[in-house]
């Protein structure tokens, strides 16, 4: 089960995700991310309520990150916030922690744009 609440801020889309981002839900997650990138350019993903995340979720996040950075108009970024310890370990396991900017709190992540 995956739930995504999206709030459009002035310069970014804030996505509060909850549940599981696994191989069965990652495609929905990626579609929502891409739609947010298309609409706002910058995306803040809050993972506080995500209980499980697999490699499929990482691929979706990387695809969306690339999309934000490769745009010629409205070049943007995708940042992560409120990432639980276990999930952070999964990013470390994938050796891609340096690709993303991690924030401790949503307000700072949104404020970065």
């Amino acid at each position: 089960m995956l739930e995504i609440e999206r709030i459009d801020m002035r310069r970014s889309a804030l996505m509060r995700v909850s549940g599981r981002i696994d191989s069965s839900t990652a495609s929905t997650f990626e579609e929502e991310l891409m739609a947010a990138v298309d609409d706002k350019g910058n995306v803040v993903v809050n993972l506080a309520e995500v209980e499980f995340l697999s490699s499929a979720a990482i691929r979706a996040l990387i695809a969306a990150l690339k999309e934000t950075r490769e745009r010629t108009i409205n070049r943007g970024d995708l940042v992560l916030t409120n990432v639980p310890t276990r999930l952070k370990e999964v990013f470390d396991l994938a050796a891609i922690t340096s690709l993303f900017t991690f924030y401790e709190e949503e307000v700072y992540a949104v404020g970065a744009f």
Partner: protein
Amino acid sequence: MWQLTVEKATFSEIHRILAFVDQISAEAFWPEREHYFIKLAIEEACANVLEHTYAGRAGRLAISVAQDASALLTILVQDWGQPFDPTQVAAATSLQESLDKRTPGGLGLHFIRQIMDEVSYFRSPEGCNVLQLRKQLAPP
């Protein structure tokens, strides 16, 4: 020993597999961190079967989990598709390639290798692919 067989496995059955691992964890008293990563390894192994061996078709998938008295964990993930050794794919895959999506499944296998102590493949006499994962847990 715990066993789960999903006769017509597709991605929509992944939640059943995750719930199965949650149940084992509760019965075997795995610490929370071990629980998370073992669940991740099993999810990745099953996702690879669904994506590559069955390639979108529904197929039979069986998972068995055993833990002996010394807390050595042995997990078997079996499918009845064409012979396919995922450990060979992983050997030829760099992490960067898998991130670029050019080699799907590479990142999942990378996770499995990082989490488990031993990852091996064999084709069983009954004609199924068996991925065997082993991990020594902290003894109780």
